[in-house]
């Protein structure tokens, strides 16, 4: 590939067993867009079914897309694809981390990094533009992530962007992350790097991303998008009534207002009125610290941080002096789940102590946990780990499965008393694989198997698992009825899908949203009034398909699916309409490859279908409906006594969900009975080879 725009045209292959480093051509994979799409194709072609995630034969692909580095709003994410250790079938999955790593990799001249094999001893990968080599990691192996990054920075220079694992990943925990920057975590694949003896990847790039379009055209598109962008999760309505706003919603993430400050800035920075026409206050709209952690976080907030080229800052960067008491660094950054998961482990709450009231104590304790988890590189299975702790303690399971001596040595009294120093002991035991308790990091499925957890675990609404595959709720039936519910059924971990949320959660009146849904999906019936659900219909199926496709698109371009698509806008003069054609517009401008919205959606459909084929191959069955796409029992039973589809309940109905599955299968051209991709559909997407292999294995539907 020469004279490439957007793409650099080349990607890196690293064989950790042999130490061989080579270059490959991105052009071969253009049909799969970039990032996640290209990674899925590489996984299909190169990693056989039955491979264990920790085996040298597994590959892990760090992916960027053509838009990373170009400055398009919210284009800083890295997509990481590999086999997923916490999944019962070790099926393929993607994780993502924000920050600046993807952009640096592009500036160094690389679209992707494909790693395979296992290094005989711990190494880190050093990339300085075109100069790539493996370095001895003896001096950083065993260290936490923060020190690891600093030590690498002292070698490579302060500008280097690092992706690293901590002790959790080194110890090949299923629930381990790969992390970059202050607080950006990709969940589930840390152990894969650990199994390969790869401690970190560090990049320094002095190059650039070329753009095909005339500069003014790109600047105009940026200006246009910035006029449509709202706040975090594309909420376009402020939390307080404000003179410029027609609507407000107290639960909105557009929670800036006069008199609300980043209190630990010097001097404090007022978030203020943030009129949507004021382009210089976009970064103040979302005060996530107060949104996530309450009013007590205001005085501790230095600023809001986030990812490269994103004007919406959703990482709360706090100054918590009290952490010095625990031997911790006093500056902590994270976004919602990074704080919520340690808070979830402290399931009885964090109690007032030492002159700090409960609200302050909660911020301190939560920050302590977030910093610990980020240093060890622990994953939480989207907050599941906290609910698991609660269940395991309250049901007496810990007492039953842990050796008596180990059980006695754990400071349960602190957990019960709401003393957050429990987390210091907890994370140390788990990340460092001490005793038996560390198996909580196997993930729900393997944990249930090992510790004999039955119906009380799986069928409990409080435990909040979604799938028999062991992953939890994440914008499921509480997010647009069957739309969220079905989206949650199709992935190999919690869906991490906000295509629907960034519309459903916009905080506009539901009638306006239903009008817009009508324009995008063909009928307002695609979107139910919250908590007043109706039966499944074909428009909801279209909404599901669109959402699944757009997530793949964003993870391939890469764009942040916690902001995109721009289905709505804050502008009254546009009737709050956004522009769902913006991904295609930027793709065309940056790469020079002209694609319409429909064409790019078709490419994403190819990516998603390939992902489905990969899952079929991993699971060795075509019966996806029953083996993969089901929910646990409480989903259809949660509000016993309230009939489904009446106001006040979000309970689903089994028959209705099965109809929904059939409709989504049909929308994708998959077999309506089993939900497996058909030969005809695969071939129509240019995936004939995939069809052939599946056919040879007896994995095509009849």
């Amino acid at each position, binding site marked *: 590939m020469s004279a490439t725009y957007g793409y650099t045209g080349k990607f890196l292959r690293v064989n950790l067993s042999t130490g061989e480093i080579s270059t490959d051509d991105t052009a071969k994979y253009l049909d799969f867009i970039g990032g996640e799409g290209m990674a899925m194709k590489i996984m299909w072609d190169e990693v056989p079914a039955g491979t264990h995630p920790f085996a040298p034969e597994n590959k892990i692909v760090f992916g960027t897309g053509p838009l990373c580095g170009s400055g398009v709003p919210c284009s800083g994410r890295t997509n990481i694809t590999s086999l997923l250790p916490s999944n019962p079938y070790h099926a393929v999955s993607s994780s993502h981390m924000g920050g600046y790593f993807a952009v640096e990799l592009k500036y160094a001249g690389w679209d992707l990094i494909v790693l395979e094999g296992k290094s005989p001893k711990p190494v880190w990968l050093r990339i300085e533009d075109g100069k790539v080599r493996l370095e001895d990691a003896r001096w950083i192996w065993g260290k936490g992530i923060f020190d690891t990054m600093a030590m690498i920075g002292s070698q490579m220079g302060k500008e280097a962007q690092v992706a690293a694992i901590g002790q959790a990943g080194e110890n090949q925990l299923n629930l381990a992350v790969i992390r970059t920057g202050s607080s950006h975590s990709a969940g589930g694949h840390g152990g894969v790097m650990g199994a390969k003896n790869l401690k970190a990847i560090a990049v320094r790039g002095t190059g650039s991303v070329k753009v095909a379009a005339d500069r003014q055209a790109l600047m105009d598109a940026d200006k246009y998008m910035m006029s449509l962008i709202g706040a975090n999760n594309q909420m376009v309505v402020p939390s307080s*009534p404000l003179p410029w706003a027609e*609507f407000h919603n*107290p639960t909105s993430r557009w929670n800036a207002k006069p008199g609300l400050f980043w209190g630990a800035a010097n001097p404090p920075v007022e978030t203020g009125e943030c009129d949507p026409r004021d382009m210089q206050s976009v970064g103040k709209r979302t005060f996530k610290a107060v949104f996530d952690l309450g009013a007590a976080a205001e005085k501790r907030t230095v600023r809001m941080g986030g990812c490269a080229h994103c004007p919406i800052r959703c990482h709360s960067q706090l100054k918590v002096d009290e952490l010095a008491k625990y031997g911790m660094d006093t500056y902590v950054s994270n976004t919602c789940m990074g704080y919520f998961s340690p808070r979830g482990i402290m399931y009885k709450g964090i109690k007032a102590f030492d002159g700090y009231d409960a609200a302050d104590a909660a911020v301190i304790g939560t920050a302590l946990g977030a910093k610990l988890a980020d240093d060890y590189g622990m994953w939480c299975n989207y907050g599941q780990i906290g609910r698991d702790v609660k269940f395991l303690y309250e049901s007496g399971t810990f007492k039953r499965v842990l050796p008596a001596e180990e059980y006695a040595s754990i400071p349960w009294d602190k957990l019960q008393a709401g003393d957050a120093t429990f987390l210091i002991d907890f994370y140390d035991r788990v990340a460092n694989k001490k005793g038996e308790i560390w198996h909580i990091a196997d993930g729900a499925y393997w944990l249930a198997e090992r510790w004999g957890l039955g119906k009380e675990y799986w069928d409990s609404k409080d435990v909040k698992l979604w799938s028999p595959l062991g992953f939890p709720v994440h914008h499921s039936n509480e997010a647009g009825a069957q739309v969220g519910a079905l989206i949650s059924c199709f992935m190999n971990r919690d869906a991490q899908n906000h295509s629907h949320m960034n519309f459903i959660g916009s905080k506009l009146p539901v009638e306006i949203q239903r009008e817009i849904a009508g324009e995008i999906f063909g009928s307002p019936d695609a979107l139910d009034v919250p908590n007043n659900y109706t039966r499944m219909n074909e428009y909801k199926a279209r909404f599901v398909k669109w959402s699944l496709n757009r997530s793949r698109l964003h993870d391939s371009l890469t764009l942040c699916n916690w902001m995109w698509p721009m289905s709505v806008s804050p502008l009254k003069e546009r009737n709050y309409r956004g522009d769902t054609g913006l991904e295609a517009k930027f793709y065309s401008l940056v790469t020079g490859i002209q694609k319409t919205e429909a064409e790019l959606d078709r490419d994403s459909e190819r990516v998603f279908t390939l992902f489905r084929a990969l899952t079929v191959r991993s699971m060795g069955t075509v019966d996806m409906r029953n083996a993969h796409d089901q929910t646990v029992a409480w989903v259809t039973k949660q509000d016993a006594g309230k009939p489904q589809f009446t*106001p*006040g309940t979000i309970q689903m109905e089994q028959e209705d969900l099965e109809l929904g599955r059939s409709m989504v299968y049909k929308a994708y051209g998959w077999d309506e009975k089993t939900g497996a991709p058909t030969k005809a559909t695969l071939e129509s997407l240019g995936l004939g080879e995939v069809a052939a292999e599946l056919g040879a294995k007896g994995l095509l539907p009849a």
Partner: protein
Amino acid sequence: MTDNQSTLELSCGAIRAASADGRLCALGDLPALVAEAQASAAARAAADPRAAPTKDAGAPTTAASIEAALSADAPDDIKMMRGKDGPYYFSELSMTAAYAKHLFRVAEKDPPRLVAETARDESRIYPRPASLGSLLEPPFSLSADELARALAEIAERPEYADIRRCAASNGDEYVYSDAHLSPAHAESLAEWASVGEKDNP
């Protein structure tokens, strides 16, 4: 701005300035504001040797004459809401009608009506029950006492029979209109807003 601006122009200027500042403009305030603007204009004219001699301002403008001028000839952005003590004005150039309505309800100094009508609007528009906590914040800024008395009075008055209360499991309280939201729906929405949404980030 010329020195010989009419009463209408000066009134609109005052209304727009108030709206830009996030405030309504009561008719009762306009005569003084207009007089002030005329005096400044006259002072500027007197200080400027090149200015033409000012026309005599004549008798001070009355509220009645301002009201008449506005209702006859006000430009499209100037809007009016009629309160029990007279009209309030705002400019749509810098304030939405929705926000102006909140300010209007505050200005009317009838907390039960403010609470009930806000509850009805939110129950109808979004739909959602209205959070009592939000009524203590700007622009409503009711005191806890005022709110408690308003709720007590609402419970007594037949014209507010549709107004009901509910609470989330964390203690947050809400008020809604059962003309637009059934109790089951309102309760589940309250629970979602106060508890559910935070549990599903």
